[in-house]
């Protein structure tokens, strides 16, 4: 759960720092991060719980196939955090159940 600083082959050109919120808590990532990579870099492992048995889930495929990393982003549920770019001020939350749209509110 950390950023790689020295790598024999790659140099990571990190963009500007981005502030976001996970379950209300302030965290930092970089431009170029996806929501999932920023969470992982901040030590978050549990992204949501399974719908029926409420088991903890993290990411699994990291390329947008498997739905393991779905979260609520700025109030919108079921966002694939592994392919969604991180943006300034985003509010990221774990989904309970299937997620609600709140169109009536």
């Amino acid at each position, binding site marked *: *759960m*950390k*950023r*790689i600083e*020295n*790598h*024999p*082959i*790659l140099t*990571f050109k*990190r963009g500007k720092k981005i502030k976001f919120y996970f379950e209300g808590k302030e965290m930092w990532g970089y431009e*170029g*991060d*996806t929501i*999932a*990579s920023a969470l*992982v*870099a901040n030590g978050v*492992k*549990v*992204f949501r719980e*399974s719908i029926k048995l409420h*088991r*903890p*889930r*993290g*990411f*699994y*495929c*990291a*390329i*947008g*196939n*498997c739905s393991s990393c779905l979260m609520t982003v700025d109030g919108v549920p079921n966002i694939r955090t*592994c*392919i969604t*770019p991180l943006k300034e001020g985003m509010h990221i939350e774990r989904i309970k159940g299937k997620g609600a749209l709140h169109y009536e509110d």
Partner: protein
Amino acid sequence: MKTDVLVIGGGPAGMNAAIEAARAGASVILVERQAHLGGQLVKQTHKFFGWAEKGAGTRGIQLAEEWARAVEEHKNITVLLSSEAIGLYDDGAWMIEQEGKLIPVYPKKIIIAVGAQEKTLPIENADIPGVYGAGAIQTMMHVYGVLPGEKYLIVGAGNIGVILAYQLAQAGAEVKAVVDVLPKLGGAYWVHVTKIRRMGIPLYMKHTVIEIKGDQWVESATIAEIDEKFQPIPGTEKELDVDTIAISIGLSPLTDLMYQAGVELIWIPELGGLVPVHSENMRTTKPNIYVAGDASGIEEATTAALEGKIAGAVAAKDLGLTVNDSDIEEWKNELGQLRDAPLLEKLRHGLHKLHEAAKERGLQ
């Protein structure tokens, strides 16, 4: 939007399909759901196996950049990034979702090159955080510069598992073990195996993971030797202090769009499971739909690129455009030679089944 050819997926197969169709004069829309082209290649820092003239010795990430540049420079190709093909409608519209916006595309020909998904391990607790696809770890590490754990067990010693082992070590992580159920190494290339041996990473053949401990996330994993019937041998268990388990036990083609479009799929385990029936010209059982790359059967980036070229050229030809038939023959020859390697016997068996099925259905 109208177009001659819609290419779905911007990996090695899709990029090359777009280039060839465009070169023959077709208008092409290439949709890719990620924010960048390249597919799985964008995380492959290792030098490629295969042929020198087909990119062996070049790192995957460089190959991806070269093809992406060729795509972007071609005036006949429109690239839509962060754009996902989500379904086909009765009037022939393929719906593309681009960051919440819906774009219907009406293509004459469709090339599906969406790649594959990593298989999951069917044991208890393999769903908790800390158990990740090997390719997913590679993505986190090489695309975003983030290590998702410190101490790793790798399950599956094919190319992907073995390559991941030394790449993790390169990035500063500790690899406690690589296990595989096979008695001896099958698909992994020796260059990579030698590397992990030199690094002192233990490789346990005829072993598997039998227990994953952890409440919220992985806290340890127990491996054991297995007998001929794949049953764990009592007394051989070893509990490893790991926080992350990488699963590299194979890939299966992404077939949902093909299924929805009515392309016939058949079960060929040697090619990754359910695969679209298709000819050597990459035509499927649906007249206007072509496939290429991992989505048509699991192989490698070099074969994906060649299949992409064939699909792009054949689609253009079917549109009535002029293509060089000798180019197509040449690419088929190269595919044949790549598939002729001694390690690839299982693959050839799978391809044989596929070609029989295509012949039975009269696919050209």
